[in-house]
């Protein structure tokens, strides 16, 4: 791994908050004397934090049913189960 790759890897790990605390502190101290490094560390961490804070799209009951209906409309009777074969007779965690 060359110096540039190591640099990127460390910044990525910093951005993902995956560095051990001591190493994170060392990077922050080092960045005080390197405005470019400081800006990159802050920018990437902000970007990762922002992405991770995006709420997941809600899988609504309507979406759940519409997907089922689209499959059903294609001629697949996935709503009607055939009698469970013997290997499926355990209680399975299916939603009602």
């Amino acid at each position, binding site marked *: 791994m060359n110096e540039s790759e190591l640099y*990127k*890897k460390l*910044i*990525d790990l910093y*951005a993902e908050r995956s560095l051990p605390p001591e190493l994170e502190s060392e990077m922050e101290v080092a960045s005080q004397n390197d405005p470019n490094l400081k800006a990159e560390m*802050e*920018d*990437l961490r*902000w*970007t*990762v934090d*922002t*992405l*991770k804070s*995006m*709420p*997941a*799209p809600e*899988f609504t009951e309507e*979406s*759940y049913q*519409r*997907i*089922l209906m*689209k*499959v059903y409309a*294609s001629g*697949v*009777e*996935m*709503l*009607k*189960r*055939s009698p469970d*074969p013997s*290997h*499926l007779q*355990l209680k*399975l*965690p*299916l*939603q009602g």
Partner: protein
Amino acid sequence: MPDDADKDSLVEKRWLDALAQGDPGALAGIYELYGERIFRFCYRTLGNRQDAEDVAAETFLRVLRKSNELRADAAFRTWIFRIARNLCIDKIRQHRLLELPPDLQYAGGDEKTALRLAVQQALSELPFEYQEPLVLCDLEDYAAKEAAEFLQITVPALKSRLYRGRKALKAKLNETWNHQSHE
């Protein structure tokens, strides 16, 4: 006691075996296991609920059509997500031809909402090779190894795309959004 992942894996194996034996009702079981995850991945990728529903439905139909190729092992999750991914790529190509805008999925008018809208828009404008790793790793919280397997690239290649994708996203957001990170 097995943990949830073990239970899911056991249930998945049973449904896949049943599907491979020609039981179409087993598709409902696969849908229960993967429906939400596939829908969310499609919505994150396409930015549009209706298209995400269409692609999710088509994904499960493809699973049924290819049920003779099914193997009840760890590869199934990767396989089903690859089907969804390829269908998303097709949809994105259609969108670019038709210039359809993404949904505005985040309602409200405050600053946080505006930022989320800006992120959603900026993400949809990134090259797909950058968008995918961001969706998988930063939005859906996949481990790098699993995301790399899914995208059929190496972990270092994934990391490189993540790095460039994050920088590209930040640059796009800077064009449209004055964030507060340096205050």
